[in-house]
Every structure is written in structure tokens, then in C-alpha cells.
């Protein structure tokens, strides 16, 4: 099983005719994702050409795309100035799962977008996230399909390429994945570690979980406590940013140690206190998972 998305998920791509949107739409379609429609205001009525000549209808608005093609999930590749609006449009159109890849959205815009998504009972993944992939089934976002294989590991991460690094080792070691979720590096994200843990907890195929965190905020600490209280499967953790200085934003808008809170040490301790083994190097994640599954 997979969480949030699967081979039946019907995807509308917002910003499908843009540079990033068109590239990743083709990648997703090549992987098998059911991209049923696209949206670019002003380009409604055209067809987007997928790989192998497949055509995807383009609409002016998400409401039309949902109405005409029954999309239930959206992936957003629009520039930061319009991305929060794109989330609100999707939520308003009745899409129930929204992946927002865009980085650099003003945080006050996101307070409103998240509020509307909550009002509409709609889940947002991200923003500033690589998306979600369920090996062999579907991918929404930008995670390269070739680096994953199906298997028993659920993976949740705040980061993109660091996730690839971890998955790379897992896959090489034959430890396939149920679903890999990049929750995003922004301070305000729609889907938290705890949200994903709760989904993985309901998935009988997920036998171990990897959580890749980083400095900033308290999401890892909350996830550790939740995991300890609610999960029966083993969890392996990693925290990036042990050498990050306080008060400096480390690339991700959310990766910042404020005062003395949100440090890697604090998060590592929260993991360990709650029985989560913490890898010291990315490469070690895979061996800890193998151990946990073996034990």
C-alpha cells in the first residue's frame, strides 16, 4: 500500500505549460502517474503533449479541470508570486490533495492558503517540497522515479536531495519503499511528520519508517513523541544541520535555529529519548533500517 496517493490518483498539473511544469509532467507521465489535465490561465483549450504522444487537456481554471477530468490531486509548479493563489484555487475547486513544489512563497501568503485548505478539508504537501512517490504506482512532484523501488520502508523528509541520498542507499541495499514523502523545507507546511506517521501507521505494508529532519522548529520532537506513543514499527532518524550556527537560515526558509531552540542536538535527543535510532551519516540510515527490519 501507499499513503496519500496511488495508481488511481487523478492529477491536474497547475502550471503545466511552464518550463518546470512541462518537464516534470512528462517525467511523471513516463513513470505512470495519471495526469488527467493541466491548468495554465489563458491557455485553456489546448492539449499538452505528454511522452509517447499522449495528450493532456489544458484548462484556464482548476475548477474546469476538476469538472471535466475528475482530478482529485494537484501538483503546483507555478512561480512563487502566484503559488499561494494556485493552492487556494485548487482547494476551492475541490481537489483533496495538493502538492506544491514551488519554493520562495511569501510566508504571509501561506498563512491564508493553509487556512483555506483547512476550511476546505484539503491536504497540502509542501510548499517547497519535492513531492511524493509511491514506487511502481505514481509520483507527484519532482522525485526522480529511477531511484526508488517498492518495498517495506516509509520515508518522510524535510529535504529534497538529502532524501535522494538516503533513498539511494536504501534502494542499493534492496530496501524498497512503500511511499517516500518530501514534506518541504518551509516554516509553514501543510503536512507534518506526524501527519505522515499517522498514515504510515495505517499501512500494513510499511514495516519501518525513516524520518529525515533538519534544524528549525519542533516538528521532529513532536513526531518522536507521537511515534513513541502510537507506532508499532521501528523508526530510524537523521537530522541535518549539526554544524549550523544559530540565527542563520540554512537555505530552507524553515531551517533556522532561533535562539537556542530547534537545534540538531535537541532533535537528536528527542529521537533517541523516544527510541528512534539516529544515523550519524546519511549512509548509515540504510544499515539502521536493515537492522531494525532484521530485529
Amino acid at each position, binding site marked *: 500500500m501507499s499513503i496519500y496517493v496511488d495508481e488511481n490518483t487523478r492529477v491536474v498539473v497547475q502550471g503545466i505549460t511552464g518550463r518546470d511544469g512541462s518537464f516534470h509532467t512528462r517525467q511523471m507521465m513516463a513513470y505512470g502517474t495519471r495526469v488527467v489535465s493541466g491548468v495554465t490561465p489563458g491557455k485553456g483549450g489546448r492539449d499538452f503533449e505528454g511522452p509517447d504522444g499522449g495528450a493532456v487537456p489544458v484548462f484556464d481554471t482548476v475548477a474546469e479541470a476538476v469538472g471535466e477530468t475528475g482530478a482529485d490531486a494537484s501538483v503546483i509548479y507555478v512561480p512563487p508570486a502566484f503559488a499561494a493563489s494556485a493552492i487556494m484555487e485548487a482547494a476551492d475547486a475541490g481537489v483533496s490533495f495538493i502538492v506544491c513544489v514551488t519554493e520562495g512563497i511569501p*510566508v504571509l501568503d501561506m498563512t491564508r492558503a493553509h*487556512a483555506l485548505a483547512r476550511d476546505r478539508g484539503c491536504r497540502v504537501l509542501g510548499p517547497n517540497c519535492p513531492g511524493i512517490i509511491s514506487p511502481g504506482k505514481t509520483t507527484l512532484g519532482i522525485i526522480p522515479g529511477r531511484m526508488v523501488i517498492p518495498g517495506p520502508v516509509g520515508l518522510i523528509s524535510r529535504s*529534497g*536531495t*538529502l532524501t535522494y541520498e538516503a533513498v539511494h542507499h536504501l534502494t542499493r541495499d534492496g530496501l524498497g519503499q512503500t511511499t517516500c514523502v518530501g514534506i518541504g523545507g518551509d516554516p509553514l507546511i501543510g503536512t507534518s511528520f506526524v501527519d505522515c506517521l499517522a498514515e504510515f501507521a495505517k499501512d500494513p505494508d510499511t514495516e519501518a519508517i525513516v524520518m529525515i529532519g533538519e*534544524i528549525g522548529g519542533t516538528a521532529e520532537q513532536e513526531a518522536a513523541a507521537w511515534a513513541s506513543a502510537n507506532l508499532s514499527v521501528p523508526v530510524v532518524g537523521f537530522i541535518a544541520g*549539526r554544524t549550523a550556527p544559530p540565527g542563520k537560515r540554512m537555505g530552507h526558509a*524553515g531551517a533556522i535555529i532561533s535562539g537556542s531552540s530547534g537545534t540538531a542536538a535537541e532533535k537528536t535527543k528527542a529521537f533517541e529519548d523516544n527510541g528512534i535510532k539516529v544515523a550519524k*551519516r546519511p549512509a548509515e540510515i540504510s544499515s539502521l533500517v536493515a537492522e531494525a527490519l532484521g530485529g
Partner: protein
Amino acid sequence: MNLHEYQAKELFRSAGMAVNPGEVADTPEAVRTLAEGFGGRVVVKAQVHSGGRGKAGGVKLAGSPDEAAAHAAAILGMEISGLTVERVLVSPIEDIASEAYVGVLVDREGQCPLFMVSAEGGIDIEEVAATNPEAIHKLRVDPRYGLMPHQAYWLATRLFDDPRLARQAARVISQLYDAFVNSGASMAEINPLISTAGGEVKAIDAKVSIDDNELFRRPGVAGLRDPRSESGADAQAREAGLSFVKLDGNVGCCVNGAGLAMATMDLVKYYGGEPANFLDIGGSSNPDKVVAAIEIITSDPSVEVILFNIFGGITRCDDVARGIVEATGRTGIDVPIVIRLTGTNEDLARTILADAGFAAGTSMDEVVQEAVRLAG
């Protein structure tokens, strides 16, 4: 982006807020003139982006214009937290009856603006939070409704018992919220918000951080950036669209992705080295960015080795390879470069690098160890 105190105050004034008067100057003579205009008794405050300004001697009270000029002479040019003081703010000394704290920032957990106020103002709020957390009152603002009048009033009554003061404070709090939202701030604070012996409430010190992601649509706010407040490397990185943070080590790092970049720094440290920087070239694979990254890294004289760690997803390894070759060809790099490349177009990248005489590994651990070894 941080604003200077005088800029933050100007922002607040344009929201209608009662703020104590003040003018900036960059010479002792100009400070003397301003002090005369303010009646002689003034405070002279260094305008730098640093919290420790007071302790570092950057804030001085003066009883006369001469004394103000003397303080200005001492403060101008002073180094505070590595930043040179270029300007001072001169304000009349206020007759303070009480000092409160008012701040608003974006709260991760509530996903909304969060006010923090305390009747204990004028001191470091983190200290209050540590020693007397009950003295801090918090209020979340629903972004769908904004700050409602009764909320501003409730916050104000946490600060002042006297209803006349509370009413003024409620107005200040509403104005602070408006300024916060309308400038695209991620944090705005008044510390202290004072009441005077005459029963007036006004803002004495102001701090505002703007969300960098807002700047594209707020040219007025973006224009407040003080180029003298950031290093050349920081400015260069910002202009090139790179995320860069200078550190104290000697292993220069160039990585794609913030999480992987932090993990790379951590691994350098793990293997006994010290990273010289955090540097994320981002998801795009523009060779120009790679060239800029190498220039920024090599402008740090401490750097003994440059470590590339690229996991190609969207980033195409061949683009990075081209950037490396171009940068090394253009400017003579006199430190060794170690490279790890894996993922999209990895083979092509390897060929490009080999043609230029570079080897590239595939294991992050091996390459980091090599870099640490080379850095000595």
C-alpha cells in the same frame, strides 16, 4: 532582510504609530546639530543589525550637544558583531514611566501571526521567556480575520492597567500588525513600548525583519536594504541566487539542496574537518551559478579545499561539471577541488570533468574524507 531601527520606526510612523522622534546622522557634527534641535538631552544609538548593540557601547545618553557629538565620534566607525557602525540615530531622551514589550512574528505551529507581549519591556525578551515565562502573553491572529479590535485591546490590557494607556497601546498594537502585514515582515517588535510620565504611550526601539520572499513585490521595502550591512560574499551570493552562510572552517562546500548541504557540512565535521561555509546552489543547474559559487568560496582566504557534493535530480550533473570547468579555466583556482557527482547525466559529467583533468567520486563519505584530508 533586517531593517535598521530608524527604518523600522519610519515604517511604524507611516502606519500612524506614536514613535519617539529621531534623525539619523553619520558625522559627530551632524549629531551635534540634531541634539541641539532636540533640546540637548538625547540618546545616540548605533544603527547596526545586531542584538548586542547596548552592551557593546553602541547606545549612549548625552546631556548636551557636545556630549552627543563626543558619543557619536566614539560610536561611528565602531565594530559591533563584525559590523562597522556607519550611522547613528539621535532621539530626545524620554521621560519613561514604564516599559513594555510588543512583538509579532509568524508562528510555525499555528501557521499564523503570533503576538507576544510583556509588561516587562526594555530588556531582552528571550531573557524574560527564560526567567519569567508567565510574564509573556501570547495571542494568535487568524489570518482570515486579521487582528480584531478586541484582541488588540486584550493584549494592551496585559501591558497597562490604566485604561487611557491601554487604549493607546491597543492602537499601537493594531498599527504594528498593519505595518507587519503591509511590509511583508516575518517579525516586527517594539521594545520598549513606553508610557511617559505625561500619560503617553510610544514606541522607543523598533526591530523589523522582512520576509525575503516578499521583496519582489515590495520595491519600496526592498529599497531599504543597506548594502553596507552585508559582506561582499553575502551580496554576491544573493545576487547569484545562491544560499550562502559563511562559517569558520577551511573546507569550502558546494552542494545542491539545503538538506544535503547541511548533511555535507555535518559529515565534514564528522570526519574531523571544519566546513568553511554552507552553500546551496539550488535545484537549477545553471553553470553560471556554479561559477559564482566557486568565486564566493575562493574569496575566503581560509579555504584550503573545495568540496562538491551533487546529487542530480533536477540538477543535471553535466551542467555542474561545465560550471566547474569554466570557473577553473577562467580564474586560476589554487586550492584542490574534490567532486562527488551522482544522478542525472552523471556519465556525461564525468567525461567533461575527465577532459579537464578532474576526477569525481560517487560516494559522499569517501569524497568528504578526501576533502578533510586535503584541508589538513
